[in-house]
Protein backbone atom coordinates (compact mmCIF):
# COMPACT_ATOMS: atom_id res chain seq x y z
CA UNK A 1 0.00 0.00 0.00
CA UNK A 2 2.69 2.42 1.04
CA UNK A 3 4.71 1.23 -1.90
CA UNK A 4 1.83 1.96 -4.27
CA UNK A 5 1.22 5.40 -2.77
CA UNK A 6 4.87 6.26 -3.16
CA UNK A 7 5.48 4.59 -6.54
CA UNK A 8 3.04 6.68 -8.56
CA UNK A 9 4.18 9.93 -6.97
CA UNK A 10 7.94 9.72 -6.93
CA UNK A 11 8.60 11.55 -10.22
CA UNK A 12 6.57 14.67 -9.36
CA UNK A 13 7.99 14.66 -5.84
CA UNK A 14 11.52 14.63 -7.25
CA UNK A 15 10.60 17.46 -9.63
CA UNK A 16 9.24 19.49 -6.72
CA UNK A 17 12.41 19.05 -4.73
CA UNK A 18 14.42 20.19 -7.78
CA UNK A 19 12.30 23.37 -7.96
CA UNK A 20 12.85 24.03 -4.25
CA UNK A 21 16.59 23.45 -4.66
CA UNK A 22 16.69 25.85 -7.63
CA UNK A 23 15.00 28.54 -5.57
CA UNK A 24 17.51 27.98 -2.79
CA UNK A 25 20.43 28.29 -5.21
CA UNK A 26 19.06 31.51 -6.70
CA UNK A 27 18.46 32.93 -3.22
CA UNK A 28 21.94 32.06 -1.96
CA UNK A 29 23.83 33.24 -5.02
CA UNK A 30 21.86 36.43 -5.67
CA UNK A 31 22.74 39.37 -3.50
CA UNK A 32 20.15 41.29 -1.55
CA UNK A 33 21.17 44.56 -3.21
CA UNK A 34 19.11 43.94 -6.34
CA UNK A 35 15.49 44.74 -5.53
CA UNK A 36 14.12 42.76 -8.45
CA UNK A 37 15.36 39.45 -6.98
CA UNK A 38 13.11 39.97 -3.98
CA UNK A 39 10.18 40.66 -6.26
CA UNK A 40 10.83 37.61 -8.43
CA UNK A 41 11.28 35.28 -5.49
CA UNK A 42 8.02 36.55 -4.02
CA UNK A 43 6.31 35.85 -7.33
CA UNK A 44 7.73 32.31 -7.30
CA UNK A 45 6.21 31.70 -3.86
CA UNK A 46 2.85 33.02 -5.07
CA UNK A 47 2.90 30.98 -8.29
CA UNK A 48 4.26 27.63 -7.01
CA UNK A 49 1.05 26.47 -5.23
CA UNK A 50 -1.02 27.16 -8.33
CA UNK A 51 1.44 25.30 -10.54
CA UNK A 52 1.38 22.33 -8.15
CA UNK A 53 -2.40 22.24 -8.43
CA UNK A 54 -2.23 22.47 -12.21
CA UNK A 55 0.54 19.93 -12.81
CA UNK A 56 0.10 17.50 -9.92
CA UNK A 57 -3.53 17.81 -8.92
CA UNK A 58 -5.41 18.20 -12.19
CA UNK A 59 -3.89 15.20 -14.06
CA UNK A 60 -4.14 12.84 -11.09
CA UNK A 61 -7.66 11.55 -11.80
CA UNK A 62 -8.15 13.17 -15.22
CA UNK A 63 -5.28 11.18 -16.77
CA UNK A 64 -6.82 7.92 -15.55
CA UNK A 65 -10.22 8.83 -16.92
CA UNK A 66 -8.86 10.11 -20.21
CA UNK A 67 -6.50 7.20 -20.87
CA UNK A 68 -8.99 4.60 -19.61
CA UNK A 69 -6.63 3.22 -16.97
CA UNK A 70 -9.32 3.82 -14.34
CA UNK A 71 -10.82 0.60 -15.70
CA UNK A 72 -7.68 -1.17 -14.51
CA UNK A 73 -7.30 0.73 -11.25
CA UNK A 74 -10.92 0.51 -10.15
CA UNK A 75 -11.37 -3.21 -10.79
CA UNK A 76 -8.83 -4.27 -8.17
CA UNK A 77 -9.87 -5.25 -4.66
CA UNK A 78 -9.25 -1.84 -3.06
CA UNK A 79 -12.24 0.46 -3.15
CA UNK A 80 -12.16 3.58 -5.28
CA UNK A 81 -12.07 5.81 -2.23
CA UNK A 82 -9.16 3.85 -0.76
CA UNK A 83 -7.39 4.04 -4.11
CA UNK A 84 -7.97 7.80 -4.23
CA UNK A 85 -6.61 8.19 -0.71
CA UNK A 86 -3.48 6.27 -1.70
CA UNK A 87 -3.04 8.39 -4.82
CA UNK A 88 -3.67 11.69 -2.98
CA UNK A 89 -1.60 11.18 0.13
CA UNK A 90 1.94 11.45 -1.17
CA UNK A 91 1.60 14.19 -3.81
CA UNK A 92 -0.81 16.12 -1.55
CA UNK A 93 1.63 16.19 1.34
CA UNK A 94 4.52 16.73 -1.07
CA UNK A 95 2.87 19.77 -2.63
CA UNK A 96 2.48 21.26 0.85
CA UNK A 97 6.08 20.43 1.64
CA UNK A 98 7.41 21.96 -1.59
CA UNK A 99 5.37 25.15 -1.16
CA UNK A 100 6.41 25.35 2.49
CA UNK A 101 10.05 24.78 1.62
CA UNK A 102 10.09 27.42 -1.13
CA UNK A 103 8.31 29.88 1.15
CA UNK A 104 10.68 29.14 3.99
CA UNK A 105 13.73 29.74 1.76
CA UNK A 106 12.35 33.02 0.43
CA UNK A 107 11.19 34.16 3.88
CA UNK A 108 14.67 33.51 5.22
CA UNK A 109 16.38 35.21 2.29
CA UNK A 110 14.12 38.27 2.25
CA UNK A 111 14.02 38.62 6.04
CA UNK A 112 16.49 41.51 6.36
CA UNK A 113 14.81 43.37 3.49
CA UNK A 114 11.33 42.76 4.88
CA UNK A 115 12.37 44.06 8.31
CA UNK A 116 13.65 47.24 6.70
CA UNK A 117 10.57 47.60 4.51
CA UNK A 118 8.17 47.79 7.49
CA UNK A 119 5.43 46.42 5.25
CA UNK A 120 4.98 42.85 6.38
CA UNK A 121 1.42 42.67 5.07
CA UNK A 122 2.62 43.71 1.62
CA UNK A 123 4.29 40.30 1.27
CA UNK A 124 1.73 38.39 3.36
CA UNK A 125 0.91 35.92 0.55
CA UNK A 126 4.48 35.03 -0.26
CA UNK A 127 6.00 34.49 3.17
CA UNK A 128 5.81 32.13 6.13
CA UNK A 129 3.09 29.50 6.35
CA UNK A 130 0.13 30.53 4.18
CA UNK A 131 1.67 29.10 0.94
CA UNK A 132 1.33 25.64 2.52
CA UNK A 133 -2.43 26.13 2.72
CA UNK A 134 -2.59 27.49 -0.80
CA UNK A 135 -0.72 24.43 -2.10
CA UNK A 136 -3.02 21.96 -0.34
CA UNK A 137 -6.04 23.84 -1.65
CA UNK A 138 -4.75 24.11 -5.23
CA UNK A 139 -3.84 20.42 -5.29
CA UNK A 140 -7.25 19.26 -4.06
CA UNK A 141 -8.96 21.70 -6.41
CA UNK A 142 -6.96 20.25 -9.30
CA UNK A 143 -7.93 16.67 -8.41
CA UNK A 144 -11.61 17.61 -8.20
CA UNK A 145 -11.45 19.52 -11.49
CA UNK A 146 -9.95 16.41 -13.08
CA UNK A 147 -12.75 14.24 -11.73
CA UNK A 148 -15.39 16.64 -12.98
CA UNK A 149 -14.01 17.42 -16.44
CA UNK A 150 -12.50 13.95 -17.05
CA UNK A 151 -9.98 15.63 -19.36
CA UNK A 152 -6.51 16.69 -18.33
CA UNK A 153 -6.07 19.95 -20.21
CA UNK A 154 -9.50 21.41 -19.36
CA UNK A 155 -8.91 20.33 -15.76
CA UNK A 156 -5.59 22.17 -15.69
CA UNK A 157 -7.19 25.32 -17.11
CA UNK A 158 -10.09 25.11 -14.65
CA UNK A 159 -7.65 24.68 -11.77
CA UNK A 160 -5.63 27.73 -12.77
CA UNK A 161 -8.71 29.92 -13.20
CA UNK A 162 -10.44 28.60 -10.08
CA UNK A 163 -7.40 28.89 -7.84
CA UNK A 164 -6.59 32.42 -9.03
CA UNK A 165 -10.20 33.50 -8.54
CA UNK A 166 -10.32 32.07 -5.00
CA UNK A 167 -7.03 33.67 -4.02
CA UNK A 168 -8.00 37.10 -5.37
CA UNK A 169 -11.47 36.92 -3.84
CA UNK A 170 -10.05 35.82 -0.50
CA UNK A 171 -7.50 38.62 -0.53
CA UNK A 172 -10.08 41.30 -1.38
CA UNK A 173 -13.23 40.08 0.37
CA UNK A 174 -12.31 37.78 3.23
CA UNK A 175 -8.85 38.50 4.60
CA UNK A 176 -9.65 42.13 5.60
CA UNK A 177 -12.57 40.84 7.70
CA UNK A 178 -11.05 37.73 9.28
CA UNK A 179 -10.30 39.77 12.37
CA UNK A 180 -12.35 42.91 12.80
CA UNK A 181 -10.05 45.83 12.02
CA UNK A 182 -8.99 48.44 14.53
CA UNK A 183 -10.46 51.88 13.88
CA UNK A 184 -8.47 54.99 14.62
CA UNK A 185 -9.87 58.54 14.40
CA UNK A 186 -7.38 61.36 13.93
CA UNK A 187 -7.83 65.01 13.12
CA UNK A 188 -7.15 66.11 9.57
CA UNK A 189 -3.65 67.53 9.37
CA UNK A 190 -3.42 70.36 6.82
CA UNK A 191 0.34 69.79 6.56
CA UNK A 192 0.04 66.22 5.28
CA UNK A 193 -3.30 66.21 3.49
CA UNK A 194 -3.21 66.17 -0.31
CA UNK A 195 -5.70 66.75 -3.04
CA UNK A 196 -6.68 64.12 -5.56
CA UNK A 197 -9.43 62.35 -7.37
CA UNK A 198 -9.39 59.33 -5.06
CA UNK A 199 -11.28 56.08 -5.39
CA UNK A 200 -11.37 54.02 -8.54
CA UNK A 201 -12.25 56.62 -11.13
CA UNK A 202 -14.64 56.50 -12.91
CA UNK A 203 -16.34 53.75 -10.94
CA UNK A 204 -16.03 55.08 -7.42
CA UNK A 205 -15.28 58.78 -7.41
CA UNK A 206 -13.83 59.27 -3.97
CA UNK A 207 -13.37 62.44 -1.98
CA UNK A 208 -10.99 64.89 -3.46
CA UNK A 209 -9.24 65.29 -0.19
CA UNK A 210 -6.48 62.80 0.45
CA UNK A 211 -5.24 62.49 4.02
CA UNK A 212 -1.82 60.93 4.42
CA UNK A 213 -1.76 57.42 5.90
CA UNK A 214 -0.95 57.51 9.59
CA UNK A 215 2.44 56.29 10.66
CA UNK A 216 1.69 52.68 11.59
CA UNK A 217 4.77 50.61 10.71
CA UNK A 218 4.02 47.03 9.62
CA UNK A 219 0.29 47.53 10.04
CA UNK A 220 -2.17 46.77 7.26
CA UNK A 221 -4.25 49.86 6.56
CA UNK A 222 -7.49 48.66 5.02
CA UNK A 223 -9.25 51.99 4.57
CA UNK A 224 -8.82 55.73 5.06
CA UNK A 225 -11.84 57.95 4.88
CA UNK A 226 -12.86 61.50 5.74
CA UNK A 227 -15.98 61.42 7.88
CA UNK A 228 -18.02 64.06 9.63
CA UNK A 229 -19.00 63.89 13.28
CA UNK A 230 -22.43 62.75 12.09
CA UNK A 231 -20.77 59.80 10.33
CA UNK A 232 -21.28 60.88 6.72
CA UNK A 233 -18.44 60.91 4.21
CA UNK A 234 -17.10 64.05 2.58
CA UNK A 235 -18.60 64.53 -0.86
CA UNK A 236 -17.12 66.53 -3.72
CA UNK A 237 -19.96 69.00 -3.70
CA UNK A 238 -19.56 69.50 0.04
CA UNK A 239 -15.85 70.12 -0.45
CA UNK A 240 -16.58 72.57 -3.27
CA UNK A 241 -19.06 74.39 -1.03
CA UNK A 242 -16.59 74.67 1.84
CA UNK A 243 -13.62 75.67 -0.32
CA UNK A 244 -14.86 77.54 -3.38
CA UNK A 245 -12.13 77.76 -5.98
CA UNK A 246 -9.94 74.84 -4.93
CA UNK A 247 -12.11 72.32 -6.70
CA UNK A 248 -10.27 72.88 -9.96
CA UNK A 249 -7.03 71.24 -10.92
CA UNK A 250 -5.56 67.81 -11.26
CA UNK A 251 -4.69 66.90 -7.71
CA UNK A 252 -1.41 66.66 -5.88
CA UNK A 253 0.31 66.07 -2.60
CA UNK A 254 0.05 68.12 0.57
CA UNK A 255 0.48 71.83 0.01
CA UNK A 256 3.90 71.94 1.56
CA UNK A 257 5.37 74.07 -1.18
CA UNK A 258 8.30 72.07 -2.39
CA UNK A 259 8.45 69.14 0.00
CA UNK A 260 10.28 66.02 -1.15
CA UNK A 261 8.46 64.28 -3.97
CA UNK A 262 5.90 67.01 -4.42
CA UNK A 263 5.56 69.44 -7.24
CA UNK A 264 6.43 72.88 -5.98
CA UNK A 265 3.25 74.89 -5.73
CA UNK A 266 2.89 78.63 -5.63
CA UNK A 267 2.77 79.93 -2.09
CA UNK A 268 -0.71 81.34 -2.68
CA UNK A 269 -2.13 77.97 -3.77
CA UNK A 270 -0.43 76.22 -0.86
CA UNK A 271 -1.86 78.57 1.73
CA UNK A 272 -5.33 78.43 0.11
CA UNK A 273 -5.29 74.61 0.33
CA UNK A 274 -3.92 74.76 3.85
CA UNK A 275 -6.76 77.03 4.86
CA UNK A 276 -9.28 74.80 3.09
CA UNK A 277 -8.16 71.66 4.91
CA UNK A 278 -8.16 73.52 8.21
CA UNK A 279 -11.74 74.59 7.50
CA UNK A 280 -12.79 71.02 6.60
CA UNK A 281 -11.06 69.74 9.74
CA UNK A 282 -13.45 71.67 11.95
CA UNK A 283 -16.32 69.31 11.01
CA UNK A 284 -14.55 66.32 9.46
CA UNK A 285 -11.86 63.96 10.67
CA UNK A 286 -9.81 61.15 9.29
CA UNK A 287 -10.99 57.59 10.03
CA UNK A 288 -8.43 54.85 9.52
CA UNK A 289 -9.18 51.14 9.76
CA UNK A 290 -6.24 48.79 9.99
CA UNK A 291 -4.87 45.47 11.17
CA UNK A 292 -2.13 46.17 13.69
CA UNK A 293 1.31 44.68 13.12
CA UNK A 294 0.72 42.17 15.93
CA UNK A 295 -2.08 40.54 13.91
CA UNK A 296 0.32 39.25 11.25
CA UNK A 297 0.80 35.80 12.77
CA UNK A 298 -2.81 35.31 13.88
CA UNK A 299 -3.87 36.12 10.32
CA UNK A 300 -1.26 33.78 8.86
CA UNK A 301 -2.55 30.92 11.02
CA UNK A 302 -6.18 31.80 10.38
CA UNK A 303 -5.73 31.87 6.60
CA UNK A 304 -3.64 28.68 6.64
CA UNK A 305 -6.35 26.95 8.62
CA UNK A 306 -9.14 28.07 6.34
CA UNK A 307 -7.32 26.92 3.21
CA UNK A 308 -6.47 23.57 4.81
CA UNK A 309 -10.10 23.03 5.81
CA UNK A 310 -11.19 23.97 2.29
CA UNK A 311 -8.63 21.51 0.89
CA UNK A 312 -10.04 18.73 3.09
CA UNK A 313 -13.57 19.54 1.94
CA UNK A 314 -12.41 19.43 -1.67
CA UNK A 315 -10.72 16.08 -1.05
CA UNK A 316 -14.03 14.82 0.33
CA UNK A 317 -15.75 16.09 -2.80
CA UNK A 318 -13.15 14.22 -4.87
CA UNK A 319 -14.00 10.99 -3.05
CA UNK A 320 -17.70 11.61 -3.64
CA UNK A 321 -17.05 12.30 -7.31
CA UNK A 322 -14.83 9.25 -7.82
CA UNK A 323 -17.46 7.01 -6.20
CA UNK A 324 -20.14 8.37 -8.45
CA UNK A 325 -18.37 8.02 -11.79
CA UNK A 326 -19.92 5.20 -13.79
Amino acid at each position, binding site marked *: MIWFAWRQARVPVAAGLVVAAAVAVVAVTAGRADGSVRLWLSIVVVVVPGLLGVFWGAPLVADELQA*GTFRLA*WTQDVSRVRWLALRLAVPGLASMAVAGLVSWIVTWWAGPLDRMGLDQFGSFDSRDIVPVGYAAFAFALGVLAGGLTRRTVPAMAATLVGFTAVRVAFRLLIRPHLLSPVTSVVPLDPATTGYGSGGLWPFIPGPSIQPAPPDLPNAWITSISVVSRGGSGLTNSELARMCPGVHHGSGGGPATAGGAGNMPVPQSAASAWHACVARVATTYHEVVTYQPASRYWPLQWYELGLFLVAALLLAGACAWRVRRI*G
Partner: protein
Amino acid sequence: MPGFRCQPGVSGRHRAGTGGSVDLSPVDYVIETNGLGKRYGRRWALAGCTLTVPAGQVIGLVGPNGAGKTTLLELAAGLRRPTAGTIMVCGRVGFVAQDAPVYPGLSVATHLRMGQALNDRWDAALARRHVLDAGLDPRQRAGRLSGGQRAQLALALAIAKRPGLLILDEPVANLDPLARRQFLDSVARAVAASGDGVTAIFSSHLVADVERTCGYLILLAASQLRLAGPVDALLARSPHGTSLDDLVVSCLREAAR
Protein backbone atom coordinates in the same frame (compact mmCIF):
# COMPACT_ATOMS: atom_id res chain seq x y z
CA MET B 1 -10.62 -18.69 2.70
CA PRO B 2 -14.04 -17.11 2.33
CA GLY B 3 -16.54 -18.83 0.06
CA PHE B 4 -17.83 -17.04 -2.97
CA ARG B 5 -19.75 -14.05 -1.83
CA CYS B 6 -22.54 -12.66 -3.88
CA GLN B 7 -22.89 -8.98 -3.85
CA PRO B 8 -24.67 -6.37 -5.84
CA GLY B 9 -22.60 -4.44 -8.32
CA VAL B 10 -22.24 -0.72 -7.76
CA SER B 11 -25.85 -0.03 -6.94
CA GLY B 12 -27.74 2.65 -8.74
CA ARG B 13 -31.06 4.18 -7.98
CA HIS B 14 -32.45 0.70 -7.68
CA ARG B 15 -30.56 -0.85 -4.85
CA ALA B 16 -30.16 -4.58 -4.94
CA GLY B 17 -31.47 -6.10 -1.74
CA THR B 18 -30.13 -4.54 1.41
CA GLY B 19 -26.75 -3.90 -0.12
CA GLY B 20 -25.09 -6.50 2.09
CA SER B 21 -23.38 -9.64 0.94
CA VAL B 22 -25.23 -12.94 0.75
CA ASP B 23 -23.54 -16.28 1.08
CA LEU B 24 -24.65 -18.65 -1.61
CA SER B 25 -22.78 -21.90 -1.46
CA PRO B 26 -22.47 -23.81 -3.72
CA VAL B 27 -22.76 -21.14 -6.38
CA ASP B 28 -24.60 -22.05 -9.53
CA TYR B 29 -24.52 -18.67 -11.19
CA VAL B 30 -21.96 -15.87 -11.40
CA ILE B 31 -24.06 -13.01 -12.73
CA GLU B 32 -27.76 -12.46 -12.25
CA THR B 33 -29.43 -9.41 -13.69
CA ASN B 34 -33.01 -8.30 -13.37
CA GLY B 35 -34.42 -5.64 -15.70
CA LEU B 36 -30.92 -4.22 -15.92
CA GLY B 37 -30.63 -1.00 -17.91
CA LYS B 38 -28.01 1.65 -18.46
CA ARG B 39 -28.62 5.01 -20.07
CA TYR B 40 -25.98 7.45 -21.29
CA GLY B 41 -27.63 10.82 -21.74
CA ARG B 42 -30.81 9.99 -23.64
CA ARG B 43 -29.61 6.74 -25.17
CA TRP B 44 -30.17 3.39 -23.51
CA ALA B 45 -27.00 1.37 -24.05
CA LEU B 46 -28.64 -1.59 -22.37
CA ALA B 47 -32.29 -2.03 -21.53
CA GLY B 48 -34.48 -4.57 -19.75
CA CYS B 49 -31.78 -7.19 -19.47
CA THR B 50 -32.81 -10.15 -17.31
CA LEU B 51 -30.19 -12.84 -17.39
CA THR B 52 -28.61 -15.59 -15.32
CA VAL B 53 -25.06 -16.55 -16.24
CA PRO B 54 -24.13 -20.04 -15.05
CA ALA B 55 -20.89 -20.75 -13.20
CA GLY B 56 -18.01 -22.89 -14.34
CA GLN B 57 -18.15 -22.22 -18.05
CA VAL B 58 -16.47 -20.15 -20.70
CA ILE B 59 -19.12 -17.76 -21.90
CA GLY B 60 -19.12 -15.80 -25.13
CA LEU B 61 -20.89 -12.46 -25.30
CA VAL B 62 -21.56 -11.63 -28.93
CA GLY B 63 -23.17 -8.72 -30.69
CA PRO B 64 -22.51 -5.99 -33.20
CA ASN B 65 -20.57 -2.90 -32.20
CA GLY B 66 -22.71 -0.67 -30.00
CA ALA B 67 -24.97 -3.51 -28.91
CA GLY B 68 -24.24 -2.94 -25.22
CA LYS B 69 -21.59 -5.61 -24.61
CA THR B 70 -19.08 -3.29 -22.95
CA THR B 71 -21.84 -1.73 -20.87
CA LEU B 72 -23.00 -5.12 -19.59
CA LEU B 73 -19.45 -6.23 -18.75
CA GLU B 74 -18.53 -2.93 -17.07
CA LEU B 75 -21.72 -3.14 -15.02
CA ALA B 76 -20.65 -6.63 -13.95
CA ALA B 77 -17.16 -5.38 -13.09
CA GLY B 78 -18.60 -2.59 -10.92
CA LEU B 79 -17.25 0.17 -13.14
CA ARG B 80 -20.71 1.47 -13.93
CA ARG B 81 -23.86 1.77 -11.91
CA PRO B 82 -27.20 0.67 -13.32
CA THR B 83 -29.76 3.24 -14.38
CA ALA B 84 -32.48 0.65 -13.92
CA GLY B 85 -32.79 -2.85 -12.51
CA THR B 86 -30.22 -4.81 -10.53
CA ILE B 87 -27.14 -6.86 -11.10
CA MET B 88 -25.67 -9.41 -8.70
CA VAL B 89 -22.16 -10.67 -9.20
CA CYS B 90 -20.76 -13.69 -7.33
CA GLY B 91 -17.14 -13.99 -6.42
CA ARG B 92 -14.20 -11.75 -7.07
CA VAL B 93 -13.94 -10.33 -10.54
CA GLY B 94 -10.81 -10.23 -12.65
CA PHE B 95 -11.40 -7.69 -15.38
CA VAL B 96 -9.56 -7.06 -18.63
CA ALA B 97 -10.98 -3.85 -20.05
CA GLN B 98 -11.37 -3.09 -23.73
CA ASP B 99 -8.02 -2.24 -25.35
CA ALA B 100 -6.30 -3.54 -22.17
CA PRO B 101 -5.39 -0.21 -20.60
CA VAL B 102 -2.06 -0.16 -18.75
CA TYR B 103 0.20 2.59 -17.40
CA PRO B 104 2.63 3.40 -20.23
CA GLY B 105 5.34 4.70 -17.92
CA LEU B 106 5.41 1.69 -15.58
CA SER B 107 7.28 -1.53 -16.31
CA VAL B 108 5.66 -4.94 -16.58
CA ALA B 109 7.13 -5.91 -13.20
CA THR B 110 5.80 -2.72 -11.61
CA HIS B 111 2.33 -3.54 -12.90
CA LEU B 112 2.52 -6.92 -11.20
CA ARG B 113 3.76 -5.33 -7.98
CA MET B 114 0.84 -2.91 -8.20
CA GLY B 115 -1.62 -5.78 -8.60
CA GLN B 116 -0.13 -7.31 -5.47
CA ALA B 117 -0.48 -4.05 -3.55
CA LEU B 118 -4.09 -3.44 -4.58
CA ASN B 119 -5.54 -6.92 -4.08
CA ASP B 120 -6.41 -8.99 -1.01
CA ARG B 121 -5.49 -12.24 -2.73
CA TRP B 122 -2.62 -12.35 -5.21
CA ASP B 123 -0.77 -15.22 -6.84
CA ALA B 124 2.57 -13.60 -7.60
CA ALA B 125 4.09 -16.79 -9.00
CA LEU B 126 1.18 -17.23 -11.40
CA ALA B 127 1.41 -13.63 -12.60
CA ARG B 128 5.13 -13.91 -13.19
CA ARG B 129 4.82 -17.25 -14.95
CA HIS B 130 2.08 -15.95 -17.21
CA VAL B 131 4.09 -12.88 -18.16
CA LEU B 132 7.20 -14.93 -18.92
CA ASP B 133 5.24 -17.57 -20.86
CA ALA B 134 3.80 -14.78 -22.99
CA GLY B 135 7.33 -13.69 -23.79
CA LEU B 136 7.25 -10.35 -21.93
CA ASP B 137 10.35 -8.79 -20.45
CA PRO B 138 9.48 -7.77 -16.87
CA ARG B 139 11.69 -4.69 -17.18
CA GLN B 140 9.94 -3.48 -20.34
CA ARG B 141 7.88 -0.32 -20.02
CA ALA B 142 4.22 -1.09 -20.69
CA GLY B 143 4.01 1.79 -23.16
CA ARG B 144 6.33 -0.06 -25.50
CA LEU B 145 4.38 -3.34 -25.55
CA SER B 146 2.48 -4.44 -28.64
CA GLY B 147 -1.30 -4.78 -28.47
CA GLY B 148 -1.06 -8.53 -27.94
CA GLN B 149 1.60 -8.16 -25.23
CA ARG B 150 -0.47 -5.52 -23.47
CA ALA B 151 -3.47 -7.85 -23.49
CA GLN B 152 -1.29 -10.58 -21.99
CA LEU B 153 -0.13 -8.23 -19.22
CA ALA B 154 -3.72 -7.24 -18.48
CA LEU B 155 -4.68 -10.92 -18.43
CA ALA B 156 -1.82 -11.70 -16.02
CA LEU B 157 -3.12 -8.98 -13.68
CA ALA B 158 -6.65 -10.37 -13.91
CA ILE B 159 -5.85 -14.06 -13.33
CA ALA B 160 -3.32 -13.47 -10.54
CA LYS B 161 -6.20 -12.21 -8.41
CA ARG B 162 -7.49 -15.81 -8.58
CA PRO B 163 -10.93 -14.50 -9.49
CA GLY B 164 -14.11 -16.51 -9.46
CA LEU B 165 -15.22 -14.61 -12.53
CA LEU B 166 -12.86 -13.54 -15.27
CA ILE B 167 -14.32 -10.83 -17.50
CA LEU B 168 -12.61 -9.89 -20.76
CA ASP B 169 -14.03 -7.07 -22.84
CA GLU B 170 -13.17 -7.47 -26.56
CA PRO B 171 -9.75 -8.79 -25.62
CA VAL B 172 -8.80 -9.73 -29.18
CA ALA B 173 -10.59 -7.03 -31.19
CA ASN B 174 -7.39 -5.25 -32.21
CA LEU B 175 -5.07 -8.24 -32.42
CA ASP B 176 -3.74 -9.87 -35.57
CA PRO B 177 -4.94 -13.44 -36.25
CA LEU B 178 -1.91 -15.11 -34.66
CA ALA B 179 -1.96 -13.01 -31.47
CA ARG B 180 -5.71 -13.52 -31.37
CA ARG B 181 -5.34 -17.28 -31.40
CA GLN B 182 -2.52 -17.21 -28.84
CA PHE B 183 -4.50 -14.99 -26.51
CA LEU B 184 -7.67 -17.08 -26.64
CA ASP B 185 -5.61 -20.22 -26.04
CA SER B 186 -3.94 -18.67 -23.02
CA VAL B 187 -7.35 -17.71 -21.63
CA ALA B 188 -8.55 -21.28 -22.10
CA ARG B 189 -5.37 -22.59 -20.46
CA ALA B 190 -5.69 -20.19 -17.55
CA VAL B 191 -9.29 -21.25 -16.97
CA ALA B 192 -8.38 -24.94 -17.18
CA ALA B 193 -5.37 -24.51 -14.89
CA SER B 194 -7.25 -22.64 -12.19
CA GLY B 195 -9.39 -25.73 -11.69
CA ASP B 196 -11.50 -24.30 -8.87
CA GLY B 197 -14.49 -23.56 -11.06
CA VAL B 198 -13.56 -20.21 -12.49
CA THR B 199 -16.03 -18.74 -14.93
CA ALA B 200 -14.78 -16.69 -17.85
CA ILE B 201 -16.89 -14.37 -19.93
CA PHE B 202 -15.54 -12.54 -22.91
CA SER B 203 -17.09 -10.42 -25.59
CA SER B 204 -16.45 -10.23 -29.29
CA HIS B 205 -18.24 -9.06 -32.35
CA LEU B 206 -17.00 -12.18 -34.17
CA VAL B 207 -18.81 -15.47 -33.66
CA ALA B 208 -15.68 -17.32 -34.76
CA ASP B 209 -13.77 -16.16 -31.66
CA VAL B 210 -16.49 -17.52 -29.43
CA GLU B 211 -17.18 -20.74 -31.27
CA ARG B 212 -13.80 -22.29 -30.54
CA THR B 213 -13.68 -21.63 -26.82
CA CYS B 214 -17.14 -21.08 -25.43
CA GLY B 215 -19.78 -23.47 -24.22
CA TYR B 216 -22.34 -20.79 -23.52
CA LEU B 217 -23.50 -17.92 -25.70
CA ILE B 218 -25.11 -14.58 -24.92
CA LEU B 219 -26.22 -12.42 -27.84
CA LEU B 220 -26.91 -8.72 -27.52
CA ALA B 221 -28.25 -6.50 -30.29
CA ALA B 222 -29.46 -2.92 -30.16
CA SER B 223 -29.25 -2.73 -26.35
CA GLN B 224 -31.42 -5.83 -25.93
CA LEU B 225 -30.69 -9.36 -24.85
CA ARG B 226 -31.52 -11.57 -27.85
CA LEU B 227 -30.28 -15.01 -26.97
CA ALA B 228 -28.67 -16.81 -24.04
CA GLY B 229 -27.96 -20.46 -23.52
CA PRO B 230 -25.54 -23.38 -23.83
CA VAL B 231 -24.22 -23.55 -27.39
CA ASP B 232 -25.22 -27.21 -27.71
CA ALA B 233 -28.78 -26.54 -26.63
CA LEU B 234 -29.11 -23.52 -28.89
CA LEU B 235 -27.93 -25.53 -31.88
CA ALA B 236 -30.10 -28.53 -30.97
CA ARG B 237 -33.16 -26.31 -31.00
CA SER B 238 -32.34 -25.09 -34.50
CA PRO B 239 -32.87 -26.91 -37.80
CA HIS B 240 -30.27 -29.61 -38.46
CA GLY B 241 -27.04 -28.33 -39.99
CA THR B 242 -27.38 -24.77 -38.63
CA SER B 243 -24.01 -23.34 -37.58
CA LEU B 244 -23.60 -21.00 -34.63
CA ASP B 245 -22.85 -18.24 -37.11
CA ASP B 246 -26.12 -18.91 -38.98
CA LEU B 247 -28.01 -18.85 -35.70
CA VAL B 248 -26.52 -15.51 -34.64
CA VAL B 249 -27.07 -13.93 -38.05
CA SER B 250 -30.71 -15.00 -38.18
CA CYS B 251 -31.20 -13.61 -34.68
CA LEU B 252 -29.63 -10.30 -35.68
CA ARG B 253 -31.82 -10.16 -38.81
CA GLU B 254 -34.85 -10.70 -36.65
CA ALA B 255 -33.70 -7.98 -34.25
CA ALA B 256 -33.17 -5.53 -37.10
CA ARG B 257 -36.71 -6.00 -38.31
